[in-house]
């Protein structure tokens, strides 16, 4: 597999643009009546993409630091006049997110075969375009390029919700688009201000530039981050915050999410939950935190308060939902609150948990949406009250749903537990109050998921419409089993995941808090001292095993 070691092969670009090429092929060479061929091509393209992306992990060197932190690098001039380069490179965080993307992309396409009956050609073309946008966003290491992919993604998602969505699809689609766009244009302004700070400065605001060559290279900004004056950092962070927090989404910018999730077709919901929501958190880790350490510290309390509100409020709202998809959508608000809380603990433990929880949430919530989609396809309703006693009629479905729900609520042995536990450790290290609220969120999470399970699967099977439901067919099983396998894998052996993200997380911690490890080494207060071994010699798998 020399192509992964060979620097002259742009493997990341290949993985990014294969879906685009597949989409163009379908547009130009397949007639729209030929649905079978369209489905087959789309699936094959997504499968090739997935298969190509797996060896990335094998050839990825998790010990790479410094210049080796970002690997598989490819770079050439794109718009030399303003210093834009086409730079692709990934670290461990991006690597896992890309794998998540290619996997859920394949599953999303495969799961749509029977759900989508209208305008199939456009549907699969848009899914493939979306795939290119998402992978590109995670690969891009140039602000301009990143922004381009970030925005390009919106258009296919808009159409996916708007054409194949539920009853209020038009409203949900435009709301999704406008919310995300408003945030990202503010982020663009922050990027521009950074750009000028790095080069000529902004004389009219008395901001002296550093006089470097104009560039959009993200790593350059990682290096000059600590030179940015605090006031400017505050405003720049605010710009990034709007861009990313809307995407995450954090309370109070979350209102587009229940609408978009609920109205989107199943595959759209899966991709939204699994990948799109991760982009906000990814943006914080990749850009906002390392570039603006001071801004991060200035705004840590507001962000954490919003995260905690998101956790608790999201969970409480989830409790009262009558619509299954909406329930899962609000549970995402709560789970993403965890991700943000762990991240803003700003210690290795919290950040590691945060990153892992991003992956976990993608797998578990993606699976939940898939499962709800399966039942929706049979009954065309998502109302919890319409169901009851399904466990008798669909035992396999009920089992898989249970495993997924347990993974989502954080049962030890499944993936959710590892992420939430690590986040709790990180948060507790920072403040017991944060951890307390987070724990409350976990309890509420168990409540709403188990209550949902109870209402849908247990009790009498009294609705006559439910009495002839078929259990999962082979295709549905095939879409859901890989996700279940991942849940168990991460739940039992998360070591390889933690190893992969260790270096990038340490890098972010050092950028945002350069003294962190120095403080640990020095004699310190008791709380920190007990945590010190975990941070200095992090072998998380064993550590969590100890705890258990």
């Amino acid at each position, binding site marked *: 597999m020399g192509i992964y070691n060979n620097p002259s092969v742009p493997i990341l670009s290949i993985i990014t643009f294969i879906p685009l090429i597949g989409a163009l092929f379908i547009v130009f060479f397949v007639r729209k009546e030929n649905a079978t061929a369209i489905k087959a091509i789309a699936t094959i393209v997504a499968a090739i993409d997935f298969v190509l992306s797996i060896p990335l992990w094998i050839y990825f060197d998790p010990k790479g630091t410094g210049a080796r932190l970002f690997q598989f690098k490819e770079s050439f001039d794109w718009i030399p006049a303003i210093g834009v380069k086409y730079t692709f490179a990934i670290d461990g965080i991006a690597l896992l997110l890309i794998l998540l993307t290619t996997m859920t992309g394949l599953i999303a396409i495969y799961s749509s075969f029977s759900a989508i009956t209208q305008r199939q050609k456009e549907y699969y073309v848009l899914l493939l375009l979306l795939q290119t946008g998402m992978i590109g966003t995670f690969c891009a290491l140039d602000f301009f390029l990143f922004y381009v992919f970030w925005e390009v993604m919106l258009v296919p998602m808009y159409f996916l919700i708007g054409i194949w969505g539920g009853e209020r699809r038009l409203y949900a689609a435009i709301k999704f688009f*406008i919310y995300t766009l*408003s945030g990202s244009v503010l982020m*663009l302004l922050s990027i521009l*201000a950074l750009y000028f700070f790095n080069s000529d400065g902004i004389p009219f605001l008395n901001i002296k530039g550093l006089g470097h060559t104009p560039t959009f290279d993200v790593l350059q900004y990682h290096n000059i981050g600590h030179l940015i004056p605090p006031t400017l950092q505050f405003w720049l962070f605010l710009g990034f915050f709007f861009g990313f927090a809307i995407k995450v989404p954090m309370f109070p910018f979350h209102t587009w999410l229940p609408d978009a999730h609920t109205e989107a077709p199943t595959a759209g919901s899966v991709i939204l939950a699994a990948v799109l929501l991760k982009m906000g958190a990814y943006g914080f880790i990749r850009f906002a935190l390392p570039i603006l350490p001071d801004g991060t510290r200035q705004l840590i309390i507001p962000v954490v308060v919003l995260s905690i509100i998101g956790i608790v409020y999201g969970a409480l709202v989830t409790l009262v939902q009558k619509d299954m998809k909406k329930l899962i959508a609000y549970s995402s608000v709560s789970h993403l609150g965890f991700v943000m809380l762990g991240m803003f603990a700003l210690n290795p433990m919290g950040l590691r948990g945060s990153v892992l929880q991003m992956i976990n949430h993608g797998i578990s919530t993606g699976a939940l949406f898939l499962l709800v989609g399966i039942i929706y396809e049979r009954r065309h309703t998502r109302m919890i009250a319409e169901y009851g006693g399904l466990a008798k009629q669909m035992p396999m479905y009920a089992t898989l749903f249970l495993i997924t729900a347990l993974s989502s609520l954080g049962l030890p042995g499944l993936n959710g537990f590892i992420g939430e536990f690590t986040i709790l450790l990180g948060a507790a290290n920072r403040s017991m109050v944060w951890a307390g609220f987070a724990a409350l969120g976990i309890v509420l999470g168990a409540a709403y998921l188990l209550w949902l399970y109870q209402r849908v699967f247990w009790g009498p099977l009294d609705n006559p419409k439910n009495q002839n439901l078929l259990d999962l067919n082979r295709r549905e099983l095939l879409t859901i089993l890989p996700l279940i396998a991942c849940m168990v894998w991460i739940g039992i052996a998360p070591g390889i995941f933690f190893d992969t993200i260790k270096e990038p997380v340490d890098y972010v911690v050092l950028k945002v808090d350069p003294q962190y490890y120095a403080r640990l080494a020095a004699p310190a207060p008791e709380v920190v001292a007990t945590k010190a071994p975990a941070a200095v010699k992090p072998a998380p798998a064993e550590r969590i095993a100890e705890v258990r």
Partner: protein
Amino acid sequence: MSWNDVVVLLPEIILTIGASLLLLGPFFTGRPKRSTSMSLHPVEEPAAAANTGASAKWWTLALLAITAISVVVCSSLAEGMTLSASFSQMFALDAFSIFFKLLFVAAMAMVVLLSDDFLRESRYSTWEYYSLLGFALCGMMFMASGVHLIAIWVGLELMSLSSYILAGYYKNEEKSTEAAMKYFILGAVSSAILLYGLSLIYGVCASLNLLDIAKVMSTLTTNNALMFGIMLLGAGLCFKVGAVPFHVWTPDVYVGAPTPITAFLSTGSKAAAFAVFARVFYVALPSFHLDWSNVLAVVAALSMIVGNLAAITQTNIKRMLAYSSIGHAGYILLGIIAMSSTGLRGILIYTVVYVFANLGIWATVLMMRRHEYAGELIDDFDGLHKRAPFWAFAMVMFLLSLGGIPPTAGFIGKYYLFAAAIQAGYGWLAIIAVLMSAVSIFYYFRVVVAMYLRDGQDAEVANSTSLQLVGGIALAVTLIFGILPAPLISQVEQSSQWVATRAAELHGGR
């Protein structure tokens, strides 16, 4: 008058002669005998009109091609001078004007192609129409070349007078006549205001040459007459570009005028006004930048806010585009306010992007036209993706470009303008600008919703080769410059260099 003078103005001379000859077209191609009377009468036999109309189109396109070639040839003949000014420093054939002249010719050629079907169906006479377009183009080229306020003013008037007539070309239609009347009266007032401003500036500076004015101004301190003159000059130009609060004519004229003329007004005419705006403010007025930039910033902010918010509720696509064009005028003003090389490049790039995306949209609107005013409601676009997949896709790209979403060229344009605003310290203005471009997506996507998300009518669409050509060119420009903007940017850097340098000399290098 020297040889150099002739070379500098040769394209305009050729164009003027050609446009005059177009008036004589009917005598050479044998028009029905009846209509030897005054111009603008509907021709009675449609078949005959179609014949003469077709050849008029080809003659006009040929004339435009010759003009474009002569611009290129003359610029190389006049080489060796960064600025070849002629007629006592009134006209310049510099890189800046060549850029705009070629853009105008391209836009005008597309307007001619757009007009073809419309003229055939409406049975109004064609030769005068094309001749007037030719004179309008001539005015625009004068405007781009003018380095003397009177020369600019004369060019502006030539363009405006032709536009007034063209806006009323549906002379039997109330809407069209009303539009022409409004446009004429308001336009005449604004021209007068502009002229008054020029005279005040002349009174203070004792010259109308932009370079002389700049030189004199750099020695002056603020005084009321001069400020008043600059304000009036700015007001007149704001009227021409349709910026708030001088925008009220825009929606009515855009809706009332025949659609190809609306296309012309919203692209070529606007681009010409911005060429003048940029040249005058960058070359002549940098010394007083601090005095006028804040006023202009308020104008830009209002334009963006009013234009984009008012566009939300429109049901007629021409009216919606009229309001959106007010918003776009606001964006381009950012480039003027910034007064930097980034800003000037932004103006040039955005003008190109905006002109082509808009022409593409107008081509689509014309393709939807069934009778004179039909096909203008957003509802008429329902289900277009089934009837005309290419057009629906192209329309989405044009709208995304206007909204500034990558990978279309609009993003590159917006990037430059926003960057210029940030660089100039106008953070608040940039925030308004980006939020308003998010708002603009809302109403642009109402068209997208109609095309893709609603079920359609079965009505035919009037597709034709010339419309497809315009749509294809516009789409190619929108996508190619969106994905590979480097050639456009380097061209723009060359073209704007001289003007940017003049500004920087007086304004402190930025």
